[in-house]
C-alpha cells in the first residue's frame, strides 16, 4: 500500500515539474509583450534627448531593436535559457549582475519577513479561530485589517520615527553601518552570510540590528493576511464533520484542534501562501525604498525612473520566474500534506 502511495506522489511531482515549462513560457511571453506594448523602442526612450539621431540608430542596431519582433522574442527566450538578460542601457551593466549584487539583500529581507509573518500570523490565527466571536478575536481581526491596510511606507516611517529617532534602539536605514559595510568583504553578496564567513560577529550583529525594522515592517504586512486566512480556515475545519467525529471518540481538545482542525486548515493556507509571494515581493519594493535597502526593489525603482526598459524587463522576468517557482514549491508541499492532491 505504502509503495503505491509513494509511487503516485512521484508521478504527481514529475507531472507538476513538466507542467512548469509551459507555465514559465507563458509568463515570459506576457512580460515580453508588455514591454513591447509601450510606445517607442527602449533606446530612444532612455536616451532620446541625450544623443544624436545617428548615435541612437547605432545603439538601436547594436541592441538588436531594428530586427523583427519574432527574432527579438527568440533572442529574449534563448537569452534566458543561457541566463543572459541583456545589458542595461543607462549604465551598461549586465542585468544578471544586478541580481548578483543586489539579490542577496532582497533575499535576506523577504525571507526574514516571511518568517516573521508566519511566526506572528499563524499562532494569532489559531488563537482567533479558537476563541472566535470573543473580544480577543475581535481585537486580533482589527490587528489583521490594520496591518494589511496600513501602507508599507507609512508603517515603516512610524517605526523609524519611534524606534530609531525617538527611542534610538535601532538604526533606521541601510543594511549595515557604512564602516561595517566597507569592512566586510563581499563573498556571497548576502551581508549576514558574508559577516559570518569573515568571522566578524560585531558586523553580523550590526546587520541583524539593521534588518529588524524593515523585516518587521514587511512581515507585519503579511502577518495580518496570514492571521485572517488561518483563522477563517480553522473556523471552517473546527465545524467539519471529522472534527465532530473525533470529539465523539473522546479525542482530547488539544489533539482535535491541532491534528484535525489545524492540519486541515493548513491545506488552503499553503495554497494561498503561494499567492502571497507576489505580495511579499511587491511589499519588498516599497520596504526597500523606505529603508534605503539596496536590493532588487530599489534597483527596479531606479531603472524605472531612468526608463531603462532592458533593466526593467530583466528584473520583471526574474521576479516572475521567482513567483512561478514559488508556486511550484507550494504545490509540492501541498502534495506532501494532502494525500488527495496526488490523485
Amino acid at each position: 500500500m505504502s509503495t503505491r502511495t509513494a509511487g503516485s506522489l512521484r508521478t504527481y511531482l514529475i507531472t507538476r515539474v513538466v507542467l512548469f515549462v509551459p507555465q514559465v513560457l507563458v509568463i515570459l511571453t506576457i512580460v515580453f509583450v508588455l514591454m513591447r506594448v509601450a510606445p517607442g523602442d527602449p533606446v530612444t526612450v532612455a536616451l532620446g534627448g541625450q544623443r544624436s539621431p545617428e548615435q541612437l540608430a547605432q545603439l538601436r542596431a547594436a541592441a538588436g531593436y531594428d530586427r523583427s519582433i519574432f527574432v527579438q522574442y527568440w533572442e529574449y527566450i534563448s537569452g534566458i535559457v543561457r541566463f543572459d538578460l541583456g545589458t542595461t542601457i543607462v549604465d551598461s551593466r549586465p542585468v544578471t549582475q544586478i541580481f548578483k549584487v543586489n539579490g542577496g539583500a532582497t533575499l535576506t529581507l523577504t525571507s526574514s519577513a516571511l518568517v516573521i509573518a508566519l511566526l506572528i500570523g499563524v499562532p494569532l490565527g489559531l488563537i482567533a479561530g479558537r476563541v472566535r466571536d470573543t473580544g480577543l478575536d475581535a481585537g486580533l481581526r482589527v490587528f489583521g485589517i490594520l496591518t494589511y491596510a496600513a501602507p508599507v511606507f507609512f508603517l515603516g516611517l512610524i517605526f523609524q520615527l519611534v524606534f530609531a529617532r525617538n527611542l534610538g534602539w535601532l538604526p533606521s536605514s541601510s543594511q549595515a553601518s557604512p564602516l561595517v559595510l566597507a569592512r566586510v568583504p563581499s563573498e556571497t553578496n548576502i551581508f549576514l552570510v558574508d559577516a559570518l564567513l569573515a568571522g566578524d560577529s560585531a558586523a553580523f550583529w550590526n546587520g541583524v540590528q539593521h534588518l529588524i525594522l524593515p523585516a518587521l515592517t514587511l512581515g507585519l504586512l503579511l502577518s495580518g493576511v496570514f492571521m485572517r486566512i488561518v483563522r477563517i480556515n480553522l473556523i471552517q475545519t473546527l465545524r467539519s464533520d471529522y472534527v465532530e467525529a473525533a470529539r465523539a471518540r473522546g479525542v482530547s481538545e488539544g489533539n482535535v484542534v491541532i491534528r484535525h482542525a489545524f492540519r486541515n486548515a493548513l491545506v488552503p493556507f499553503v495554497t494561498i501562501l503561494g499567492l502571497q509571494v507576489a505580495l511579499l515581493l511587491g511589499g519588498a519594493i516599497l520596504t526597500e525604498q523606505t529603508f534605503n535597502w539596496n536590493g532588487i526593489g530599489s534597483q527596479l525603482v531606479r531603472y524605472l525612473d531612468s526608463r531603462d526598459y532592458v533593466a526593467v524587463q530583466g528584473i520583471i522576468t526574474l521576479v516572475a520566474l521567482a513567483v512561478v517557482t514559488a508556486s511550484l514549491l507550494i504545490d509540492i508541499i501541498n502534495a506532501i500534506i494532502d494525500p488527495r492532491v496526488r490523485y
Partner: protein
Amino acid sequence: MTEPVISVRDLRVWYGSERGPVRAVDGVTFDLRPGETLGLVGESGCGKSTLGRGVLGLLPRGAKLAGEVNYEGRNLVTASPKAIQRLRGPDLGLIFQEPLTRLNPLLRISDQFEETLRTHEPGLSKQDIRHRSIEVLRAMGIPPTRYRAYPHEFSGGMRQRIMIALALVLRPSFVVADEPTTALDVLVEAQIIGILGDLRRNFDTSLLFITHNLGIVAEACDRVAVMYAGRIVEQGPVTEVFARPQHPYTRELLRSTISLSTTGLHYIPGAPPDLIEPPSGCRFHPRCPSAMRVCPEQFPEQVEVGPQRVECWLHGPDELVPEGGREPLVREEITVADEA
C-alpha cells in the same frame, strides 16, 4: 429485569434563536438495558438527532442541556466536559449519518485508530494497537492490507464500516447510531444492520438507533420510541407498537410507509410544528385526525396502555378530562389559515 445501562430523565435541549428558544428536545424520558436496541423514529426536524447528541453531550455551540442522563451512577448532564470526554469512546459511542466526511482526509486509517486507542489506553504498544484495529476492521469486512490507506481510497459503504469500527474498537457499552445507513444503498444497509445486530449479540452493546425507516426498526430493534416535536409520544416493544399503535401519530406514521402492495401514498397533512412556539396542549392536535376539545387545552399525561407508554388524551386518564373534553375538536380557524 437488569439495571438499565443508560437512563434518561426529562432531558431538554434548546437552542437560542432571534425569536426565542428552539426547544428541540422537550422533556424526554427513556431507559436502555444492556444489549437492547431502541429505535427512535419520527419526521425530519422532530429532534431525533439532537436527542442522540444531547445524550452524549455533543451539542453544537449555543445549545443548552437540562435534565438527567444517568450512566453508571453519574448524571452526564452535569458532569465536567473532561469527564464526558473520557467516557466518549470506551463507554459511549456515536455512529454518524455521513460516512464520506467523517474521517479526517489527511490521516491514514491506521493513524485514526492509533489516536483513538492511544487517547483512552495510553499504555498500549504499537503492536497491540495494530492487532486490535485490524481485528475490528476484519470483523467489518475491511481487509488488513488496507490498514494504512487514506480515507479517500475507500467507497462510501467501506468508510461507514471503518467509522463503525472506529466507534467500536474500544467496545463502548452504549452506542448512538444516527441514521447510519441513510446515505448508503440497500445492500450496504443490510450489511451494516447485520453488523450492528452481531454487536449486540456478542458484546451486549446497547444501541439507540435513530432512523426514519420503519422497516429497519421492525427488523433491528427491540423497542421503539416515536418522537414528535421534541417529545416521545409513544414507546414500547416494536411488535406491540407496530401491531397496535396507540398514539394517532404513530398510526399515521405507520400508514405512511410504502410496501409492494401500496397503491396510493398516504401522508399526514400539515407540516411538523414550529419548535419555537409549539402548538398548545398536545403538539400533534393540529394534524391529528382524532383530536378532541381537550387536546389543545391541556398537555396529555403519560399513560400505560398494555406494554406501551403513550401521551394521548384518547387513553385518559378520564378523571383529568374536563366536561365535554371528549367532543371532537372543531378546527375552522386552522382550515381558514391553511387556505390563506
